[in-house]
């Protein structure tokens, strides 16, 4: 469409003499004895435009899509096969003028928006954060015995997350909570009451200490001041359980005579609450 497009076209034609389109039309027209004016009037096309087509002068022709249309009409008018003419034109047109990249300049008013890249980036970021926090949490659970490592891990998590912290803040908090929660759980987990293996577990806890000894199977419910179930299970004969919680405790002993209860090391006599084998009372008020 510009001056320079003329050059490659002529080169092309020298290489491929068969690929002529305008000249072929001109030849056929003169063979039929038709005047160019007649064709122009019949096809409602400008005379100059047809002359340019017959001269194959691409520098003054409009965009290829229009030229192809003119060629199709012209070829049909001369009873030629339009596809051959257009194929010949395509060989030249494609190399000379790349098919329209039309609206770039006019259309590109908005900057590249986040409409396209936005969701993908966010997704990739979210997935990375998820994976990292999962790995950190998983590593954390494996290393709970090595207590000194805990703080390092937390720092690692902080670092890992802040490294990725292009996200809005609430998103990160959401991502962190599932990672933090299990770590916190590790410390409070013993309150679930396990058969005592190590006497020293959680000695430093400020809460009151409860010890249960069972001479026979008994159902025991102990609920502390915060409503947490300190013990809620069937105690097995001969076992000894230890637990902590905040006083006062609401206690139900299913088979009361079989249970010996120590509160901060002091034995509690619950015989007076005993009604038909079941003792219900509040401790530590």
């Amino acid at each position, binding site marked *: 469409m510009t001056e320079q497009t003329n050059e490659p076209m002529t080169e092309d034609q020298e290489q491929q003499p068969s690929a002529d389109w305008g000249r072929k039309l001109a030849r056929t027209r003169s063979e039929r004895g038709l005047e160019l004016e007649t064709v122009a009037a019949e096809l*409602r096309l400008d005379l100059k435009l047809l002359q340019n087509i017959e001269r194959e002068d691409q520098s003054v022709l409009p965009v290829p*899509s229009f030229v192809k249309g003119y060629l199709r009409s012209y070829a049909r008018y001369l009873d030629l096969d339009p596809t051959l003419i257009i194929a010949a034109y395509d060989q030249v047109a494609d190399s000379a003028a790349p098919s329209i990249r039309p609206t770039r300049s006019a259309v590109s008013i908005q900057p590249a928006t986040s409409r396209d890249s936005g969701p993908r980036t966010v997704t990739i970021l979210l997935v990375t954060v998820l994976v990292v926090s999962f790995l950190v949490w998983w590593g954390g659970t494996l290393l709970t015995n090595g207590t000194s490592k805990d703080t390092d891990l937390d720092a690692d998590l902080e670092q890992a997350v802040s490294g990725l912290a292009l996200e809005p803040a609430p998103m990160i908090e959401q991502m962190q909570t599932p990672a933090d929660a299990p770590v916190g759980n590790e410390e409070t987990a013993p309150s679930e009451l396990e058969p005592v293996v190590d006497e020293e577990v959680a000695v430093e806890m400020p809460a009151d200490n409860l010890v249960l000894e069972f001479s026979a199977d008994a159902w025991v419910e102990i609920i502390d001041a915060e409503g947490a179930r300190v013990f809620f299970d069937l105690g097995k004969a001969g076992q000894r359980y230890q637990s902590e919680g905040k006083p006062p405790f609401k206690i139900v002993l299913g088979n009361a005579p079989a249970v010996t209860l120590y509160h901060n090391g002091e034995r509690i006599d619950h015989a007076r609450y005993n009604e038909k084998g079941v003792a219900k009372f509040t401790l530590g008020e």
Partner: protein
Amino acid sequence: MVFKSFRGMFSNDLSIDLGTANTLIYVRGQGIVLNEPSVVAVRQDRGPGGPKSIAAVGMEAKRMIGRTPGSIVAIRPLKDGVIADFTVTEKMLQHFIHKVHENRFFRPSPRVLICVPCGSTQVERRAIKESAAGAGARDVYLIEEPMAAAIGAGMPVGEASGSMVLDIGGGTTEVAILSLSGIVYSASVRIGGDRFDEAIINYVRRNYGTLIGESTAERIKHEIGSAYPGKEVLEIEVKGRNLSEGVPRSFTLNSNEILEALQEPLSGIVSAVKIALEQTPPDLGADIAERGMVLTGGGALLRDLDRLLMEETGLPVIVAEDPLTCVARGGGRALEMIDEGGSDVFSVE
């Protein structure tokens, strides 16, 4: 939302030409991957009011038109370029979107660009948008059909010069004058390929006392239909039900008869073009007179339609390359343009 965009990473961007007659889907980097009739066959079990299910979509469903038993209805969910049956359109889109995403592990969630007639109302556009969203699209963009057609036909729509495009679809004909990536004038008349078929059916009934079906009428149009008296007269043999005898009879039609039959819808299109030219600002009109108008859409394949318009308007008329797929291809190009940063050719409301 997060999962939608996650799934979107495994989906292709689609440009859909949701036409009355055919639906075309263009996938970025792959070209036209689907070209099927916009027809859905719905099966209704256990009589009226019973549960409905989709029996077939697309090509298969089109073969059923006019040949269905009582329990199956072949529906064309779009009428005049807009949605006539919301649920069925949604199901059809869903089917097509899945079809172009075969062999995928994830449920597709593509970005979708849909072409709408420029005469469609806000309500109709909204319906199309919701329907695509319901079919699983992540983002839905709408583009006006003439704009997509012009881009697909390779017209220089971004330049400060007038381009005129006439897109004759199945349900509507859109005529528009474009300049600087915008629509200067546009009009939509509800005449299209379907009206041609109807006109042929009516003509045959009136003149031969014979009833023919839609698919026969379409075949006649494709084989011998023309818009301008040609050099040679073509003939076709068709079969239809004779109204007086009540039995199928075969008879011969020629192209001049079909030309006569098509006069009414064709004059509707010609007058729409003339009105558009009247309304065009003179400078843009001069550009159009110099380069001519471009025909796209299935209707452009009607023999000698360009000739008719040339005679009627005195302007050069050219038929776009591969006119059937122009709109879908133009939509695909427009999707690329979104990524390149420009999107003011869209009406995304």
